[in-house]
């Protein structure tokens, strides 16, 4: 959207990448440099670990998923488009891994706490209303601990809305970056954010503040 920022980024990429920058690392990665791989892993594994942790319900899967993500990063580094932002590319791979996991879990059991996998993320007021009618987990709002409450409520958001909320609030990415990661238009990202926040507000009863 912001074409000046985009142009600036393109110009940066066109010049020789700074040593130790993501751009330089990905070039070395593509050439099979193992040292570069360690650096990429150390730069991103905490973020990716935490991103995945909030998206899957079974703790034991987190490490496996993180490994899958970085295997893919390593193997497909040669296909990385240097016009794009490297960190967004890593997140996109992580999100795809999470989606694969959701599908597998859904096939194994009717796991989904919220919308079925593949659902457009219920970007609609009507869907919001229907979800509100479903019972909240017992006593969730009476819990002493706000972060516990919030955790339950965020888990309860439709997958696609939850992804946007997590990337925005906890990972502090721009909406532009999130739209690249989620492979959807900026306007869709913004509406997912809006629906998610409105839902959390209702569930938390924030309005009577």
């Amino acid at each position, binding site marked *: *959207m*912001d074409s000046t920022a985009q142009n600036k980024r393109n110009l940066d990429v066109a010049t020789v990448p700074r040593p130790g920058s993501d751009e330089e690392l990905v070039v070395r990665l593509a050439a099979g440099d*193992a040292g570069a791989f*360690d650096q990429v*892993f*150390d730069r991103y*594994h*905490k*973020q990716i*670990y*935490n991103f995945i*942790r909030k998206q899957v319900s079974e703790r034991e899967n987190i*490490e496996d998923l*993180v*490994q899958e993500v*970085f*295997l893919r990063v*390593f*193997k497909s580094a040669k296909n990385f488009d240097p016009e794009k932002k490297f960190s967004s590319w890593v997140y996109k791979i992580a999100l795809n891994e999470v989606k694969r996991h959701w599908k597998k879990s859904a096939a194994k059991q009717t796991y989904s706490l919220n919308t079925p996998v593949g659902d457009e993320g219920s970007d609609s007021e009507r869907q919001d209303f229907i979800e509100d009618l479903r019972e909240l987990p017992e006593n969730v709002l009476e819990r002493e601990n*706000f*972060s516990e409450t*919030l*955790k339950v409520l*965020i888990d309860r958001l439709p997958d696609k809305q939850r992804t946007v*909320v997590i990337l*925005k*609030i*906890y990972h502090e990415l*721009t*909406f*532009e970056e999130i739209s690249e990661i989620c492979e959807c238009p900026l*306007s869709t990202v*913004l*509406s997912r*954010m*809006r629906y998610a*926040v409105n839902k*959390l*507000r209702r569930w*938390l009863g*924030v*309005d009577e*503040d």
Partner: protein
Amino acid sequence: MDCKKIQDVIFNFVYGESSEAELLATRDHLEKCGDCAREKQVIEKLLDKIKNCEAQETVTEDCRDRMLSKIKNSLAGEEPAS
């Protein structure tokens, strides 16, 4: 910019990601409309609250090493030394 349109741009505004034109129009509306200004405050407060209640989980050195060595093993398994 009217009250309905504000809903579409409020998150851009709150996070400082509005375009120039959007920024001016949003600011202008918020100055004139108490309802939307209050709405913006509620949203900001909530976002803040959500942000502050969850710290990143640290990945232990053990966990880091375990993951990294599994990745390397699996790469080595697929691509025997060239």
